[in-house]
């Protein structure tokens, strides 16, 4: 089965609303990273957060390692936040990075 599950699959918001994205993974992870993929396809790393809570700008990620889940909170969403958000883990004892299928976010003006 899918090792990294993301929800929701898609999300539509009005500008200014907050977004909450979820990532659940089925194997223990030594690293967890959130990425943003623009509609044009380029991939950008947002946050590395294997455990605890991290903030950067309008983004907050909280990872609960024992429960194998992570969330990404986007506050005061903007139209430029539209794109796909990907969660990726590095499985313990391997070098392999596994990506989730992503959450497609659309922020309307």
């Amino acid at each position, binding site marked *: 089965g899918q090792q990294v599950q993301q929800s929701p699959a898609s999300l539509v918001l009005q500008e200014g609303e907050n977004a909450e994205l979820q990532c659940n993974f089925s194997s223990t992870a*030594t*690293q967890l*990273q959130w*990425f943003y993929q623009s509609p044009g*396809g*380029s*991939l*950008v*790393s947002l946050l*590395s957060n*294997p455990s605890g809570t991290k903030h950067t700008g309008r983004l907050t990620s909280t990872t609960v390692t024992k429960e194998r889940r992570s969330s990404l909170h986007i506050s005061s969403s903007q139209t430029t936040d539209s794109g796909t958000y*990907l969660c*990726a883990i*590095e499985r313990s004892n*391997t*070098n*392999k*990075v*596994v*990506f*989730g*299928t*992503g959450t497609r976010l659309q922020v309307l003006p």
Partner: protein
Amino acid sequence: NAGVIQTPRHKVTGKGQEATLWCEPISGHSAVFWYRQTIVQGLEFLTYFRNQAPIDDSGMPKERFSAQMPNQSHSTLKIQSTQPQDSAVYLCASSSGQRDTQYFGPGTRLLVL
């Protein structure tokens, strides 16, 4: 800092031809990763180098795919006898270390006709 550079950005090949994709990691980064992205499979890990040495190629299709890193400034992914199912965006990423933040290149969009 130019970021991770990938060339070409687009490549079209005929079935059975060879395709070589290039990646120049960020200067000073010791880890280089290759991924493939398709609509059906999403993002898939292919292979990983650390200090130019191949560490894990478990994601690479066993036949026709090979990756090398002859020096610290570039890595290549070669696909022999390309097939239509090889059509994908091939992404290269580099990081300071295995578990550090990965920085992705723009990708090479490969289309096999």
